[in-house]
């Protein structure tokens, strides 16, 4: 069951790297939130601890509902629907993201040989999710897509933390949650300012400062 959920999580990333509809990105983010929630429920042994409650709030409330809702609000308000002309065609996006997943599994294979203390599937998928997130940020042109790529990167990191949830002190997870929340809030704030100032939210417009 657990492995099935992780593989599904990996598939959402491949889906995202091929699509050009902005709303599909948001739906994928919500989907990832739900998958992470499932994983927390399946994986946990102590259902009454503070840590569990906190994880449920983080995944179900924040990752699956609040953040996608917030992003959707920005998108509706600014009438952005499609990622026009990404830097590379969708076909090559899929090829490259598949290669990234291959690399992730190679690294996890290496980790089995050199260090036996981690679930290789967790490690491989989370590393490749992070790299795919970065890849999306690099190849897409819309600022809103950049924010969502960043959120996917964060989801990948969250998947990695799940594998050592007993070692991470609560205060750190609390800090992470707060940072992500404020970060997204600030992103939205500045995004609206960019929209108001430049009328077009492409990174091509942000080229005033250079040497």
């Amino acid at each position, binding site marked *: 069951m657990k492995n099935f959920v992780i593989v599904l999580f990996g598939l959402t990333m491949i889906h995202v790297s091929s699509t050009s509809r902005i709303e599909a990105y948001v739906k994928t983010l919500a989907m990832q939130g739900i998958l992470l929630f499932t994983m927390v429920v399946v994986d946990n042994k102590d259902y009454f601890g503070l840590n569990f409650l906190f994880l449920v709030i983080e995944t179900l409330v924040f990752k699956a509902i609040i953040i996608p809702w917030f992003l959707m609000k920005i998108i509706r308000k600014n009438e952005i629907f499609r990622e026009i002309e990404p830097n590379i065609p969708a076909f090559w996006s899929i090829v490259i993201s598949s290669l990234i997943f291959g690399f992730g599994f190679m690294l996890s294979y290496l980790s089995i040989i050199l260090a036996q203390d981690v679930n290789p599937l967790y490690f491989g998928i989370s590393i490749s999710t992070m790299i795919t997130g970065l890849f999306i*940020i690099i190849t897409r042109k819309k600022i809103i897509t950049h924010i969502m790529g960043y959120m996917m*990167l964060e989801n990948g*990191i969250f998947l990695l933390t799940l594998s050592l949830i007993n070692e991470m002190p609560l*205060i750190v997870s609390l800090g992470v949650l707060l*940072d992500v929340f404020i*970060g997204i809030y600030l992103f939205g704030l*500045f995004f609206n300012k960019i929209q108001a100032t430049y009328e077009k939210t492409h990174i091509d417009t*942000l080229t005033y*400062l250079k040497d």
Partner: protein
Amino acid sequence: MIPMLFLYPVIVSLILFFINSKLINILALLGYSAIYLACTATFFFAPAEFTTYFKTDTLNIIFIAILALVFFGVAVYNIYFSYHSNEIPQRHTRYTICFLLFVCSMTGALLSTNLGLFWVFIEATTLTSAPLIFYDRTKSSLEAAWKYIFICSIGISLAFVGIILISMGSAQINSLYFADLYANSSKINLFWLKLSFPFIIIGFGTKMGIAPVHAWLPDAHSEAPSPVSAMLSGTLLNCALLGIIRIYKLIDTAGLIYYGKTLLIIMGMISLLVSAVYVVKIKNYKRMLAYSSIENMGIISIAIAIGSTGLFAAMLHTLAHSLAKASFFLTAGNILYKFKSKDINNIHGLLKNDKFSAWLWVLCFLCITGFPPFPLFLTKFLIIKQMYVSGNYVILLLFVVFLTIIMAGMSVSVFKMFFSVEHHHHKHAPDKNIYDLFAYLPQCVFIFILIVTGIYMPSFVHKLISLSSKF
């Protein structure tokens, strides 16, 4: 003493939010900096501890001292800056609140004894300083703030991956306290530690501003108002540096020193190369200072990697660079206010219009490029000597060549501004008043401190630096 440093900004921010008075804002910032300086003085005599999470030790005390000094100078300069800024009180209040919380989060980062908590505070510095960069509300400052917050967020996320990898490797220790990690470094799985260090150095390196992950730095430093630029360059970069030093020590105790050294030297050299390439044809003098910050961060990371005397030099360099760069940015603020332009070619008659700023400009330049008697001469000399002794001739050669190019590039711009001739006479000279004094006072004090440190280092400063250089 430590709770005071955290409580004051939080409580005062709440009060300021409802008052909205420029005068009270200025006084609140000054008050915090004075309290900060006083608390730091007590830390020298009695190391402080607040819960298990915050503590002063021989390494972070020097960073706290730098923060206290630079912050005090900037708070004094802020009187002049606020007097001349035309912002409405609400925005000035927001600026002051962010400033207080920014310093508070840097304090948290410097004092924290836990790697995870350190990370949280470093992230907090990004969030609190992004509105400060956007202070001018221009198109370009919006762009700079966006790049800053986005690039640093990604960098910090990568640093977090590094932290997760460290805790994976240290599953037996089950603690992220630096002291526990150092004490049990032999139990850490080297595979995970090796994998984590590139993440850590890229992540915190983004915040520290070493190339090739420096992209936000020139934009943010040039667009932020000058007191903020001074704080960014003089103190924020040091916070991230402290994180890298702490992890470097872990790498060292775990026996991977050679690996750590190689990475630091590569990043440091790329930093020198990048600033040498860009500084030569630079047009914006605030960006020139930003590239100089990248250069100095590169020098510090190389010095740490060189080891032995290099460590002493690295610490002294951090101290001297912070003071010198803060005064350089504050002087740049004076010039920007007088001439309303950041373009080097638009500065005409600097010496005639503003004699003090002109001389400070040159003095800061001499200081930052390491002319004797300033301490940066001593540090660069020590680094070069250590490179020679340890037989790193290739690094030595590249180091000297890059430094010479950067010095030549900067000197062209600085002296062009200094000797520039005025084409047409300014008709209305701005009337002088008492607040203008604060535009020069902090820089003079900083340069005085630097000259004293360079000529005759007081024994307690020497002790402080040599203790911290042993980590």
